[in-house]
């Protein structure tokens, strides 16, 4: 080993790293987390909103699954990456191109202002990309084995709902973000498109995601209007 290599190695021991935080799967915290699960379970069941998954692994408070989607609720959500909305939803394409490349006929809530494609996920934008009134994203459930949406514990509410007879999840409150599995198998972490509410539901062989600043009843009504 040369002198500079030795000096670099020595430097490594002298760096002022930030203190290592308690990370997700630390057993030292599992007891308090399980207690948090139990408390959350009691509170939420009392409210009659949803059924939790008390058998969830120690890192997670709750786990919700749809076909093609998993929502993981954790007790602490660190800051997520913020990237431009256009990067999130992909390039603008024609309806014909979107359908050809995605491999299914698009559903909609009326003619959108623009249609975007990223990988095999199509997003219909109502309003402008910069200030959308509503976003409707569509993908086949078979594209990925897991499409993960991670939600903060105390700030985001996740409710099991039914949308036109199909299973769905309604996320509201602050601070949730989406992790997509890209076509190459990598998962990209991102912010949700809108800070407001998100409805995820299965529609036949599709996974649909509606994001708009509306309440639960209105979101479900919109979801059931998708044709």
């Amino acid at each position, binding site marked *: 080993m040369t002198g500079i290599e030795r000096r670099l190695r020595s430097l490594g021991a002298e760096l002022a790293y930030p203190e290592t935080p308690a990370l997700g799967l630390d*057993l030292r915290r599992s007891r308090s987390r399980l207690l948090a699960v139990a408390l959350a379970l009691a509170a939420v069941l009392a409210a009659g909103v949803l059924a939790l998954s008390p058998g969830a692994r120690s890192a997670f408070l709750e786990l919700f699954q749809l076909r093609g989607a998993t929502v*993981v609720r954790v007790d602490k959500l660190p800051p997520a990456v913020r990237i431009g909305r256009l990067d999130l939803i992909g390039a603008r394409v024609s309806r014909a191109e979107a359908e050809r490349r995605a491999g299914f006929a698009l559903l909609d809530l009326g003619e959108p202002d623009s249609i975007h494609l990223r990988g095999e996920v199509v997003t219909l934008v109502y309003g402008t990309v910069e200030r959308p009134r509503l976003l409707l994203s569509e993908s086949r459930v078979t594209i990925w084995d897991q499409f993960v949406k991670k939600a903060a514990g105390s700030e985001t509410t996740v409710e099991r709902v039914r949308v036109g007879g199909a299973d769905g999840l309604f996320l509201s409150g602050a601070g949730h973000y989406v992790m997509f599995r890209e076509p190459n198998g990598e998962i990209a972490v991102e912010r949700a498109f809108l800070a407001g509410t998100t409805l995820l539901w299965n529609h036949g062989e599709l996974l649909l995601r509606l994001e708009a600043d509306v309440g639960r009843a209105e979101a479900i009504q919109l979801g059931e209007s998708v044709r």
Partner: protein
Amino acid sequence: MVSRPPREDELVERARRGDGAAFASLVRDHEELAFRTAYLIARNAADAEDAAQTGLTKAFYALRRFRRGEPFRPWLLAIVANEARNRRRGAGRREALALRAAHELPSEGAAPSPEGRLLGREQRAELLAALERLPEDDREVLSCRYLLDLAEAETAQVLGLRRGTVKSRTSRALDRLRAELGEETR
């Protein structure tokens, strides 16, 4: 009779079957290194925490793809490093590396004189500043190899490079670092 702690491959098998406690045991020894790896790449404490936590979560879900018999640590670090790179691209605030305060450093045998300590500290600060001026690729490979003390093969896995590339990039980066310091290159 004292029972032996479970081996890494046993913990991996249990974790593959969905045992979160086994996974927690498996990653506990690597958490600090995972966080530091993320920090050296993302250069932001919040991003590093996010990258490390998300990386652990993804690793748990991805265990089916972990090849039995392979070392677990570089596989885990590679996932975390990838997360950290994604966050770095998010153009968040980049924190400068800094030296620990003198009183926080472990003592090394006979205490040097105050002048000796000061000189040593100045040299280390100079080395750190030179390292910071290197291109990102160079800085990453030197960080893995020397600051984190990873083996060449581990560095290759963590950075997603061939081992030969790590070797050549390390050599080139060391030359550049020497040049930054005004020292003769080999």
